[in-house]
Every structure is written in C-alpha cells, then in structure tokens.
C-alpha cells in the first residue's frame, strides 16, 4: 500500500518532525520505487531524525545499525552464540547423544544471534532500517551492504540461505568523512539536508521545547543562524539549538535582548570547542544579539 505524497507530509507533521520542503517527496519516492534513501549533510542537521520519523509515520519498528571503522559481518549480520553451543555440546556428550544429532542441534536457529541487518529482513512487517554514518564503515563492508540491499537474502553456511520475509525501508546517512562508492550512490535515492532556515528551526524549537513562546523561539533561531555564519570549528547543529532553547526556557527568559550577559553565559550550549568559545567573546555575542532584533 503506497501512501500519497501529501499524506506523508501530514503524517510527518503529526509525529512531530518538522520536515523541510522536499523530504516528503523523497520519502514518497522511496516508497514508490522501493529504493533506499541516502541522506547527506553536516553533522547535526537531523539526518538520523528522518529515519526515526519515517518509522513513526509507518508505525514500523526502527532497526538501527551504527557503522564504525572495523564493523564486520559478525556485528552487523549474525553470529553464533558460542557459549551456549559449547555448553550444549558438553551436556549432550554427557547423556551420550551421537555426534550428528549434536551438530544438528547446535547449528539451529536457537543458537543464532540476530544482528541488525538479519533482524531487518526477518520481521513479519517491514521495519525501517537505519544505517547510520555508513561512511565510517570500511569499503569491504560497503560492498557487502550493496549486495544485501539488492538481493535481500543472506546465506549462512551452517543454515542455508535466508530470504527476506519483508523488504525493509532503508535509510542510510553519511557525514562525508569518506567518499562513498558510485555503486552505492547509484543504488540509492539522494537527499541533501541543510541546516534549517530560521522559520523552520523556530518551528522545531516550538515542537520540541515545552513552555517556550513563539517570540523567544524565533529569537533563538535567528541567533543560532547568526552563530553558524561565524568562522567556527564546530558549527552548532539542531540538537545544540534545542539545548540552548531548553536552557533559556528553563531560565524563564522572555526576551534575549534584555539579558545579554545570560545569553553569553548560555552560549556554552552552542560552542563545543575551547577555540570556538574563545572566539565568541562578549563583544561578538553582543554583536550577534544585535542581529536578533
């Protein structure tokens, strides 16, 4: 059952994800063409959130695979539960069972540990598979992933081939620490997520922060937009904005311009390195505050 594009944007709003203009189209297309979606963008623009929102929209389970350097099939696909296998061997030897029966037994489903990728293709209803930061994994793993994404079947030498019972919706995210292969890129739909524009960021603040009023949310969004234009080592993401909003709301602030000192103090939510902290002095903070009006 394919959802209409309009339904997706409505539902995204309903689950509290403030979508940018085109992401709903990309998500619809993903559904329509049954292709994975590759999301790219700076750290902290909310790539992972898209996966979570998509799961919420479809009421599906979210299965997440966080990639890292050295990630291998054991951690991503399946592994045998060795401890239990050994235990079973010892106990069955004790009661004098024959070798073939033991072997049959210990290589059964009972001793198989599902990892995210195997779990994703064995669910009764299609889950959302979020493969996070795929650029951190090695090239070999990427090639393996590509194979899995086109065949949706896995072969386990001791058990045989396992075919997908349901095709998961796949979302991949990348931070661009390594160039992904052309093959993977071509397999996927592509969407680039930028930092949200002021209005959208204000909306995000309003949906995510309790007890904050519109004026303050808009001021914070403008402030953050100005901070992002500074020459910083770590540009603050949406999560940092939300931290700042929560802090300022907690301080029961009404208007940023009234309390420049408090704003300077709470900048710590946005600036995550010593160098950036040193760069945004009281004067700079004051100047940025001037742009908020």
């Amino acid at each position: 059952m394919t959802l209409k594009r309009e339904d997706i944007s409505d539902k995204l709003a309903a689950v509290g994800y403030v979508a940018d203009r085109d992401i709903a189209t990309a998500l619809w297309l993903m559904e329509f063409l049954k292709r994975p979606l590759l999301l790219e963008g700076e750290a902290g623009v909310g790539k992972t959130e898209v996966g979570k929102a998509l799961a919420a929209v479809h009421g599906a389970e979210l299965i997440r695979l966080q990639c890292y350097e050295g990630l291998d099939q054991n951690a991503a696909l399946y592994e045998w539960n060795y401890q239990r296998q050994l235990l079973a061997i010892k106990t069955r030897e004790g009661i004098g069972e024959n070798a073939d029966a033991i072997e049959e037994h210990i290589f059964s489903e009972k001793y198989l540990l599902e990892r995210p990728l195997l779990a994703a293709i064995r669910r009764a209803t299609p889950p959302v598979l979020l493969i996070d930061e795929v650029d951190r994994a090695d090239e070999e793993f990427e090639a393996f992933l590509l194979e899995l994404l086109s065949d949706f079947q896995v072969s386990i030498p001791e058990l045989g081939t396992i075919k997908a019972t349901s095709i998961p919706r796949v979302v991949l995210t990348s931070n661009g620490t390594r160039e992904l292969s052309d093959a993977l890129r071509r397999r996927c739909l592509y969407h680039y997520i930028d930092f949200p524009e002021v209005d959208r960021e204000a909306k995000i603040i309003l949906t995510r922060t309790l007890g904050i009023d519109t004026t303050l949310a808009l001021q914070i969004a403008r402030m953050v937009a100005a901070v992002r234009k500074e020459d910083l080592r770590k540009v603050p993401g949406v999560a940092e904005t939300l931290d700042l909003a929560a802090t300022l709301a907690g301080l029961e602030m009404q208007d940023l311009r009234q309390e420049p000192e408090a704003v300077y103090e709470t900048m710590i939510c946005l600036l995550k390195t010593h160098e950036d902290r040193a760069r945004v002095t009281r004067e700079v903070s004051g100047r940025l505050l001037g742009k908020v009006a």
Partner: protein
Amino acid sequence: MDSCFRGNERSEMPGARRRLAGFARTLRDNGFKVGLAETSDALAVLISPAAARPISLKPALRALFCATHSDWERFDEIFDAFWRGGGMRQRQILSGTPSAGHAPARRLAEAAVPQEALGLPDRVERRTDGEGEAAADGRGRREGATRAEALLSALDLRHIVDPDEVAATHALAARLARTMRARLVRREQVRRRGRRLDLRRTIHRNVSHGGTLIELAWRRRKIKPLRLVVLLDASGSMNLYTAFFVRFLHGVVDSFREAEAFVFHTRLAHVSPSLRDRDVTRAVDKLALMAQGIGGGTRIGESLATFNRWHARRVINSRTALMIVSDGYDTGEPARLGEEMRRLRRRCRKIIWLNPLIGWRDYSPQARGMQAALPYVDLFAPAHNLESLAALEPYLARI
C-alpha cells in the same frame, strides 16, 4: 514496479518520454551519472499521479538523479533551464564542470604547457649548477633526448626543455606516484600476521571439535592505507614546476585509493574531480588551465584558511599526510600563514613541505612565509628533480 507502466507509456506519453530522455542526456553532459535504471524510474514517476502536481516533480527527479552534494547543488539550475527555458542546453554545458572534452581549450593548454617549459629556463640559467648548465645549452638538450631515465631523474626540472624529455619526465612522475602506492600497500600485507589470539573466533572455529582448541585464530591489525592530500602552489613563481607537479598530482590521485588534490595561487581550488578523468591528457590539460594563475601573488595563508574552513573536516583523518608543494613566497601576512599551519598541524598526522628551491645552491628558507610555516612542518624537503621525490617515498611508508 516500473514494468506496470511500461505497457502504456508509449501510447500515453510519447512526448514526456522523449523530453525525459533529453533531460537525462543533458544531465549526463553535465557530469551526472545517470543510467537507464534512473531514466525508467523517472518515467514511472512522471506518469504516476504525483506528476499531476508539477511542484513535487522537481524534488522527485532531484532525489532520483542526484548522487552527490555537488550534483544536488547544480540540479535546480539545470532543471529550470531545461524544463522552463527550452533550448538552453548549450549554456548549461558551459556553466557545469565539463565532462566531455572541449577541443579548443585542450589545444590551447597543449600549446601553453610546453611553451612555458621551453621559454623560461633562460631566466634562471644564471643560478644553475654544473649539471644544469650542460642541459641548458643546445647540445645538452639534444643529448638529453637519448639519455637514460636515471639521468633524467637527477636533472633539475627547470632544465628539462625538450618536448620528448618533458613527456618522459611526466611519465616518470606518474610511475613514481604509482610505486609509492604499491609500497604502501605491500606494507599492509606484511603486517597481516597475527600477534594476538582472537578468543571469540578461536572458540567458533573449534566448536566442531567439541570445544577442544585445535585451530587457533589470530587477530591481526588491519592497516589502512595512507591518505595523501596534496596542496600545489600554482603561482607565478612556481610556474617552471607546475606542469610537472600537475602530472604528479594526476598520478597520485589516480593510483592512491584515498587521495585529494588542491591547487592554489590567490585562491584555493579542489581539483580531485577533474583529475579523476580517465583520459590523462585531458585531465592534465584541464588542470593546467585551472592552475594558470592570473599573475597575482600567492596567498598561501588565505588558501590554507579556505582549506581549513571548508575542506579539512572532510578530507583529513588521523592517517592523512598533507603535502604542500610551494616555494613559500607568500604575499599575504606571515602571521596568518603561521596560524593556519598551526591549525593544520593539529588535524593531520604529518605535514610535508616540498620546496623546489631547496635544490638550488645556497638556498636557505629566507622567505618570511616559509619562516612562519617551518615550525609546523615535519619534513622540509627538496623537490626540484625526480630523485628528490623518489627519496620521499620511504619516509611516506614509515608514517
């Protein structure tokens, strides 16, 4: 999915089909990697109910046809020009990164490179050592054409003027870049012997022996190949060497699995995409054109700042060696250069500064920019001939 549309596409949408094929071709001309699968998917989208709302058509096609961020940024312009402007295809090709060769530009570059190499040695003849003088006069040149590669590699690059020699040098440079990679990879294989026991895998292997440990599994350290980032100074003061290093860059980018190349004079340009062109001559010519400075001074500090701000996060990891090829004549503030070098130092594993001038007799790094940068440089080495570049390779292997 698309098979259900294939039946009626011809009867209902012949125009759309043709237009779409044209659009796909335009994208390909602009360097997009668009295959048949994308086009047929696009057609399915085009005749689906979503196409009734043209406003969602653009984002849909964008998600489908783009594969990288740079595609993403250029898509809107191309889309608008094609679907709204009709016959604007010509202009589009010019504004994009050309993937097809431009014959006139190529000839220009071909003509420009040897001329540069031929015309300029006279200017520096006075400073040459004995070996160079032999090559600079006419006789030396003719002899040089038949010399062995060994001799060629010891010759200062400024004095290689014969077109054949130039070509031979360039081939050597490319081969050198490849050897460097071969060495680095072999090193990875030698280390692939276990030192520590992998307990988990050992147990797994021996389940078939009923848990009695017979086969052992070793854990080995996987060594990732070095990533090399090269920043090439293409300013006026370097132009005797630029053509050669451009060729070297191509070899590096072509053969290292992870390499990035940048060229700077007054500005910094990321050139790896142009260098990945399979056609060597075309790639090198394209770059030679890009590298032709407008004659202004070198702003090393500012170029490094651009690099730090926009590229460093993406191209540098903990196993990156940064190679700067420059004579260190900076027209910007030395303090700025020092500051940017300090930042770079913190990000990458090693900084290698290759300075062609070191090969000149009596050279000492007097340029103020060079002075400011030196404290942050791990290896300050000459790069005036091929031998000096080859000498670098064992050092790279040890990083």
